[in-house]
């Protein structure tokens, strides 16, 4: 895997953000609709009974998966973004240097011309 290639097909951050949030929002909208919630299976609906909630509270470790989900998503997104920035910066720097060199090359004959005359 090349870490230095140009990122011609890299998705923009706001596109990535839409891809991340859209499924959550769609799921939330469906879950928040009482009609759909009532017709859905227990455990997946919007309404959780008091008894179920109390049972969950008695087992605090049962929610460990949610904590790890938050942990993994948060750091994956932040480190992914740092990696994206790092690659973009390197690619950008190379392109800038190449363009500067090309511009300097173009300027050279004009700068050298007076020297040849003297």
């Amino acid at each position, binding site marked *: 895997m090349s870490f230095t290639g140009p990122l011609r097909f890299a998705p*923009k*951050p*706001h596109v990535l*953000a*839409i891809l*991340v*949030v859209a499924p*959550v*929002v769609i*799921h*939330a*909208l469906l*879950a*928040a609709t009482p009609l759909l919630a009532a017709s859905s299976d227990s455990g997946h609906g*919007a*309404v*959780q009974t008091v008894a*179920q*909630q109390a049972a*969950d*509270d008695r*087992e*605090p*470790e*049962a*929610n*460990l998966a*949610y*904590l790890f*989900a*938050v*942990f993994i*998503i*948060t750091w994956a*997104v*932040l480190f992914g*973004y*740092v990696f994206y*920035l*790092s690659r*973009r*910066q390197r690619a*950008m*720097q190379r*392109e*800038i*240097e190449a*363009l*500067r060199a*090309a*511009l300097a090359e*173009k300027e050279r004959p004009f700068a050298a011309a007076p020297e040849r005359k003297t």
Partner: protein
Amino acid sequence: MAETTYPTASQRPARRTGAIGMRDVFFVASAVLVALTLYLVFFWVPTEANLGVSQRIFYFHVPIAWLGMLSIIVVAVASAMNLITKRQKWDALAYASAELGVIFASLIIVTGAIWAKPVWGVWWTWDAKLTTTLILWFIYVGYLMLRAYGPKGSQGVRYASVLALIGAIDAPIIYLATNWWRTTHPDLNIGPLAESDLDSRMLLTFLISLITFTVMYVYLMMERYALRRQEDDLDELYRTAALRA
């Protein structure tokens, strides 16, 4: 009035040098603080009696929420400065902060939904705090889409700046939502209006987590700002090359 002249992108030296700069300092500080925060969150802080381990999501979710709101304030201030001074560096700062803002706003919604499921029994509810946060996310996305697909040049920057200034009004609304409306969301934990009754170890862990995420935000901001300046340089170089061709 005489106009100040600045060296063009083709005349400026490359920005990144081999010397240790502020970005490196913030990178190391972020790494150390992240390690410390993870240790505190997973091994040191006591488990909350009612919510169990899911309460530890609080140490990620609230600092991220703070940065989501801070970002829009930075975007608005930088946009205002750009409108006043017309200096490109303010625009670069606003753009960098908006991009970070959309990331943090996305994380607020996602981490909040994951926390809401075990605590409230639902992934999402149209609570005032949650809804205003979703509006903030749309403001960030709108800003970036306006910059990407709106009018090019100074006109596009002006439109986006106005959007940022209006959008910044949402930050205090999110903060005060629990005071203004009846909500299921917990009360304020940070800021001048907070009445926190956290255990001392929980409070310390939370404050360290807040500092960690803020340092990381500054580091990310420096990196994104540098990239934005590179993008501006490249645009300028292409324009110069086109003129000379």
